[in-house]
């Protein structure tokens, strides 16, 4: 419960955060702190410097932008979950934010922190991958947009460089498309044993998986089966193809493979019924 020694700096702006990340050894960004600080207390994480970006103004918002919705990286899960704009245009994101952790976590944790942490058991990354969302990062070279498909690279690893600050998450408006996010966990507050996101699209669906490998995954075989005319039940049988789930106290790999097929079928039924 006592972290190892670290330095602490408050960044007043994104530029200052980028500068601090570049000038300090083993610097880590601190936003809501609900993934990083527990890891530090267990001394699993030992950053040399914490760069607190929690006070940077203007990074907490949900707004329409072009044909999609832009979400500021410092927007707390609770604000994402209750955003009217998201509920109307991209309900799966609002719904999923409301499934994270417990009320205390949702009132402190941020969407940007959750996404850049790169935890394969995290709910939102799987949903963003399913939505083909874009992640906006600002670094020493300026701003760039990273496709969700390119963003999650490994367990706790992302495409963010050592001096990158994730500033915005951009998701599409779904119009009337059906969607579902099914989270299966032992307790309400737990990470997903398995999570499945589905969004109806062009008569088929896009499907994303949580806790089925080192990163969130797209269930491509399911998507292809649907595109070839398979029904939800038949398509869902392909849900674990290419997945490499781990075995832990929450469930064995075999069980996760079974579970992902059941949840995929249910998610598809829900999403495709509108």
């Amino acid at each position, binding site marked *: *419960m*006592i972290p*190892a*020694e670290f330095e602490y700096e408050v960044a007043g702006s994104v530029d200052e955060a980028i500068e601090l990340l570049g000038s300090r050894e083993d610097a880590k960004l601190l936003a809501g702190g609900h993934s990083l600080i527990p890891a530090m207390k*267990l001394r699993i994480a030992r950053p040399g410097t914490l760069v607190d970006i929690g006070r940077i103004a203007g990074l907490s918002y949900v707004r329409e932008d072009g044909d999609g919705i832009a979400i500021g990286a410092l927007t707390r899960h609770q604000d994402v979950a209750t955003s009217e704009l998201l509920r109307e245009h991209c309900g799966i994101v609002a719904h999923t934010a409301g499934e994270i952790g*417990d009320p205390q976590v949702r009132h402190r944790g941020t969407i940007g922190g959750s996404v850049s942490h790169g935890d394969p058991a995290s709910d939102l990354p799987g949903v963003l991958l399913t939505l083909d969302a874009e992640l906006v990062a600002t670094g020493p070279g300026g701003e760039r947009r990273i496709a969700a498909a390119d963003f999650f690279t490994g367990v706790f690893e992302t495409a963010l460089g050592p001096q990158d600050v994730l500033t915005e998450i951009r998701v599409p408006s779904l119009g009337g498309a059906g969607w579902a996010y099914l989270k*299966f966990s*032992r*307790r*309400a*507050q*737990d990470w997903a*044993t398995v999570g499945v996101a589905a969004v109806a699209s062009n008569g088929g669906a896009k499907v994303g998986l949580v806790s089925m490998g080192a990163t969130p995954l797209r269930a491509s075989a399911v998507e292809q089966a649907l595109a070839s005319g398979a029904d939800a039940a038949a398509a869902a049988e392909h849900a674990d193809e290419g997945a490499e789930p781990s075995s*832990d*106290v*929450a*469930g*064995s790999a075999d*069980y996760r493979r*079974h*579970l992902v097929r*059941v*949840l995929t079928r249910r998610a598809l039924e829900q999403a495709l019924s509108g």
Partner: protein
Amino acid sequence: MTAVGQSVLRKEDAKLLTGQGTYVDNLHPAGTVFVSIVRSPYAHARINGIDVSAAAAADGVVGVYTGADLESLWSGGLPCFWPVSDDIKLVKHLPLATDRARYAGDGVAVVVAETRVAAKDAAELVQVDYEPIPSVTDVEAAVADGAPLVHDDAPGNQAYTWELVTGDVDKVFADAAVTVKERYRQQRLIPTAMEPRGVLCEVNAAGDVTVITSTQGPHIMRTAYTLVLGIPEAKIRVIAPDVGGGFGSKLDVYAEDMIVIGLARKLGRPVKWTEERSEANVATIHGRDVIQEIELAATAEGKITGVRTRLRAAMGAYLQAVTPGVPLLGAWLYAGCYDVQAYDFHCTGVFTNTTPTDAYRGAGRPEATYAIERAIGALARQVGKSAVEIRRLNFIDSFPADIASGLQIDSGDYHAALDKGLEVLGYDAVLAEQADRRAANDRKQLGIGFSTYVEMCGLAPSRILGALRYGAGGWESLSVRVLPTGTVQVMSGTTPHGQGHATTFSQIVADRLGVEVSDVEFLSGDTAVVPTGMDTYGSRSLPVGGVALYHASEKVVAKAREIAAHQLEVAADDLDYEAGRFSVKGSPDKGMHVKEAAYVAWTAHNLPDGMEPGLEATYVYDPPNFSWPSGCHIAVVEVDTETGDVQLARYVAVDDIGNVINPMIVDGQVHGGIAQGVAQALWEEAVYDEDGNLLTGSLLNYLVPSAAELPSYELDRTVTPSPTNPLGVKGVGETGTIASTPAVVNAVLDALEPFGVTDIDMPTSPERVWRAIQEAKR
């Protein structure tokens, strides 16, 4: 209106809920130094050397000590107070291991520093040369041929054997028309009190030792500190301040207390240790971890005639305060509330390379209740009777009841509790819903599970404890003092760690002395204020301590009567007494209140000849019997037959705990107890990997449920007052935990009946349920 029987709001809560509670970690005497323990990461390892030089040189470090450095402080090691048998192996248990670490978490060195952070940082710098050796964490593997030995002087890892046999068991089984034999696994549990442990010790120049510790047992600790450290008991003051839960885990005598006290004496400075949560998961005792075999002999109709039980109970790496005795606390209960003729209980205690086990809420009785309540389900299936019919056929129905295992149940009415449970549940409607879902082959199947339990608590008659070789008595000491101005102090030998003693005990006194509940001040948890007591465990506070308080109050009333009679110039027998006031028979206007008698007793200007001044009394009560709560718990679960997910849909609990002092507090105890028992059925399990590492080392993976996982319970009561005490009360602290686990597992099995599943291990995780269905389909 009497106070007893009312849901008086808890006096404790204003302080606790506004953050004004005083826990050990809130206390920082000037000059305090902090302790961090270096613990073995290996389940079993020789300690070939410890290099403390880097740690000793670190900033803020006061000293670094190995087990060898401190061994002279505690040559006897930590005590086991319950050597249950002649064959017990009382293995040496030093507060810091010297030659060999025997479980992952065993302490091997200690760092003392000016700050908690410095102590923690320096502990990482202690270099221990471990030589890992083969380990064994599973109780059955530990008794297999060739298993690694946890202690060289305990061959076969056997700690002890103990048996209880009555009646002609072999004949009963030979004559039985039907027998069933079941095997159950009680998984290992981690108690998880909200406040982790902590201890702070100060020693003054006169050698007075004050220990402030998060304990259920300040009086037991005072004695234990003397036994281990050789400090004269009269020089030790133990304070249990506000204590944030214990569930038995804070009854134990722990290494860290000895380390802190020893170092405070050695260094002449206040020394403090506060447990971290992940540290608590390895360093505080665990519960259960028992393999049970139970056999029932019965007639063709399903009337049980005999019970035979074989246990293998994990002790862990050492014997803590009452580790060996925990199975004995359930030894009489393996026939449950059923009338049988012959009884055979046999237990083997087994050492494993794990955190020691000890008493955890229910201690022995949840295990027994689980075994018989599941076995009776197996019997019902075999003879083709329903869960309700088989129970009605076998209930003990005449009280007091001499049971086959040899004790006497004080009172009860098991049919009435079952009737009420079925009524609250609306059994027929739930059965109809279940039938519909089965007929429709619904993805979500309903299961209904019963647990009709009886337990023995209110520990305990001292003579019985003596016969069982327990190292202490079972009495309790309570004192009542009426101050000159009429308010009342209660000095209680039993001290709370969340139970609400201050409120409940005040209600008892208020009625006896005719004062307000708010006039009563409850004092406990400080051996300087309350020098004698037997502390808090085994649902004993009310049926032992509360009864002592009743008698102490009666002694005060008797003395006040003498004073009033003297003042009013009448014979004591000529006074009526009601609501605190004595009045002269026939002249009710002439009278005196107990409060007035207290003032008279204080001035002592005009007391009867030979009477001692002051109005106070102490009563030490030794109960003549255990108290025997009973009841009927019914769980309804919904099982997702595709995922294996189990949702607890409803929970009905009808408990008979005799008379009730404070219904709200009783409901709270039942609520918490049920949550803990349901947790064993559905979520909690301490898991070791093959190398003996605890995989469930934090609250991320040791699944303590929250309110989100539990339904609103439907509680009711039946009341058969205990005839063995004047309050008619029984204990309630453990009933919910004892009763609920088998109710839930029986419900899961009932839901899976269409698949032919008849057995499942706890916790009934989604994966286990799914696998049980897959195997049954094969």
